[in-house]
Each structure stands twice: as structure tokens, then as C-alpha cells.
């Protein structure tokens, strides 16, 4: 059983230097974020906290993708690691209220990884069901 594309609301939270820069490059190539994805930009991954992520869900998102620069690539040095830690803190709260783990995803990227960003957006959906009986 194949799954169709998931167009339920999604929020993309990312820092300017990673996702922000990538989105600008994609725009130059004529590619844009899908309509159901809302882009919320921060200047540095270090300012991403669990409240921001919870508010994204509160505003109607069913899926949230958090993106920052990789550890070692962050201009503020620890911003990326902080973003990851705060995302996990949010995940823990979400799990306590029954949200499935797959609804929140964290990735690191550089500005030249726009294609990966679009793919992650595409992949952020419920895990495919196993087919039963004969394949």
C-alpha cells in the first residue's frame, strides 16, 4: 500500500544561515517550499527553544521540522547543539501528551543542501504501513 503525499500543515523552523540561505538559493532556481509548509526563521539555532516548537503545533501544525547549522559550523559555536537539545526537550514533552515521535524532526544542513531540505519535508509523515499477505 503506497502512501500519497501528506499535505497537512507543517512548520519549518530554521536558522537564517542554514535553512534561510538554502531557501534563497532554491528561489533563484525557481523552487519554493510547498504551500502547506510555513517557514519561521530565527537568526541562530541557539535561539530555538521548546516553547517555539510547542507553539508551532499549537498554531495548527501537525508536523514540525527543525533545522540548524551542523555542530562545528555554527557561527555562534554552540547554536546547533543547543537547537538539537531543545528539540529533544520539546519531543519529550510532546511524547508525554501523546504526540507520535515522527511528528518532530531535527536536521542539520548547509546552504547548499536545499534539495535535502525539500526531501526531508517530503519525508516528514507517518511511517508507511507494512503490506500484509503476498507482497
Amino acid at each position, binding site marked *: 500500500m503506497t502512501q500519497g503525499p501528506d499535505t497537512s500543515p507543517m512548520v519549518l523552523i530554521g536558522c537564517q544561515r542554514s535553512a534561510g540561505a538554502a531557501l534563497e538559493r532554491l528561489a533563484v532556481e525557481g523552487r519554493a517550499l510547498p504551500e502547506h509548509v510555513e517557514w519561521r526563521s530565527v537568526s541562530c539555532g541557539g535561539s530555538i527553544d*521548546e*516553547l517555539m516548537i*510547542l507553539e508551532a503545533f499549537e498554531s495548527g501544525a501537525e508536523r514540525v521540522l527543525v533545522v540548524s547549522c551542523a555542530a562545528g559550523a555554527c557561527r555562534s559555536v554552540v547554536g546547533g547543539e543547543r537547537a538539537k537539545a531543545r528539540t529533544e526537550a520539546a519531543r519529550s*514533552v*510532546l511524547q*508525554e*501528551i*501523546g*504526540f507520535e515521535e515522527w511528528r518532530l524532526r531535527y536536521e542539520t544542513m548547509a546552504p547548499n543542501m536545499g534539495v535535502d531540505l525539500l526531501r526531508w519535508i517530503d519525508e516528514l509523515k507517518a511511517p508507511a504501513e507494512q503490506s500484509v499477505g503476498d507482497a
Partner: protein
Amino acid sequence: MIVAERKPIPEILDMVRHAASVAVVGCDTCVAICMAGGTKEVAVLSAALRLAAKREGREQLITEACVERQCEEEFNEPLVDLLATHELVLSMACGVGVQTLAEQYPSAIVYPALNTRFMGRPEELGTWSERCLGCGNCVLHKFGGVCPITRCSKNLLNGPCGGSEDGKCEVDPDLPCAWQLIYDRLAAIGQLERLWEVEPPKDWTTSRDGGPRKVVREDIVP
């Protein structure tokens, strides 16, 4: 400082689920410092409660507030309208704050969102450990500034027990043996001879064993 941690959210939900409106009130003193019940934690818990209500198809009003110090009535006075207009108050203060609110507003239903753990200190970011259990008769001068009542699992006054190994307590390998700490500290300050003194049985009346306690400063009471 008083160290507390937030209760698991499912437990909090069981307490507040039935209420049409909940005022979530934090405290910006001890529990803010241990990142359990300050303004930020109030915001996160409130968001979680709203999300849970939405998921469960419930209508629930969640209002956030935070006071400087919930154990002192003067700081809680501005809450009077909030408490009057909400069915339930979820306090994110320590047990003292929760009870102060409840005593100050006897018709309010005040529930605790935190588990108050102990009096302790931060060891490193995100880690706090117990240092004092308020026995009411401090003997830290006898033990090089290390409290055997609080930090020895068996509160031995003539320790260590036979289970001290490699400086760790037999109860938990991450727990330092208080008597190893005492020994090292007394050695460092040149007071090892204190270890030879036989400490008599403790008078526990000054501790909680003597009943709930009170301190009164006669010179200050009007």
C-alpha cells in the same frame, strides 16, 4: 535552595483534565533557578496542556501567571482575580508556595505541578544534589563542612559503614560516601582527630521527628 522538578505531564493531566479553566501560576525564586517552575516553565507546561486539550477534543482555558515568590502572601495578592475566575489553580511553586496559595485563598482549589525534592545546590548545569535536610541542630563544624545526616545514606554520626568502597556509597555507585568526603576534608584542614570522638545519639526533636516546626523571633513579633 529548594530543588523541585515538574511532575510527569500525564499525572498533571489527570489532575486538571476535568476543569474548564486552569490558572498556571509559577514562582520566580528557587523553582525558577532549578528550571522547574519559573516563567518559562509555566509557558511550556501551559502550551503542553493546551495541546493536550486540543488532542483530546476538550475546551479548556489555560491562563499563565508568575509571581516573584509564592511563599509570601504579599506577592500573591495580585492573583486574587485570576483565582476567582478559574476553576483550578495549578501551582508551579514548591510545596511551600502551593500551600501558601491554598491558605491565602481557602476557596481556591490549588494543585501542585511539581514534586519538591530537597534543599540542595547545583553541581553543574542541569544537576542539583541534596545537601541539607533541616535537622535543626547543625553540626557541620564537627565534620569538615560535610553533613553526615544528609549525605550519608544511613545518617551515621560515627561512620563509615562497611559498605564504603572506592569513595562510593553501597546504595548507589554514583553517590559519594559521605564519610570518605568527611575524612578527606578533615585531613585537608588538619582536623583528623575529630574522627576519634564518639558522637552520642542525636536529639531528633529539632528535626521533623519532633513534629512540624516553627521559628519565632520574639524580638520581631509585634
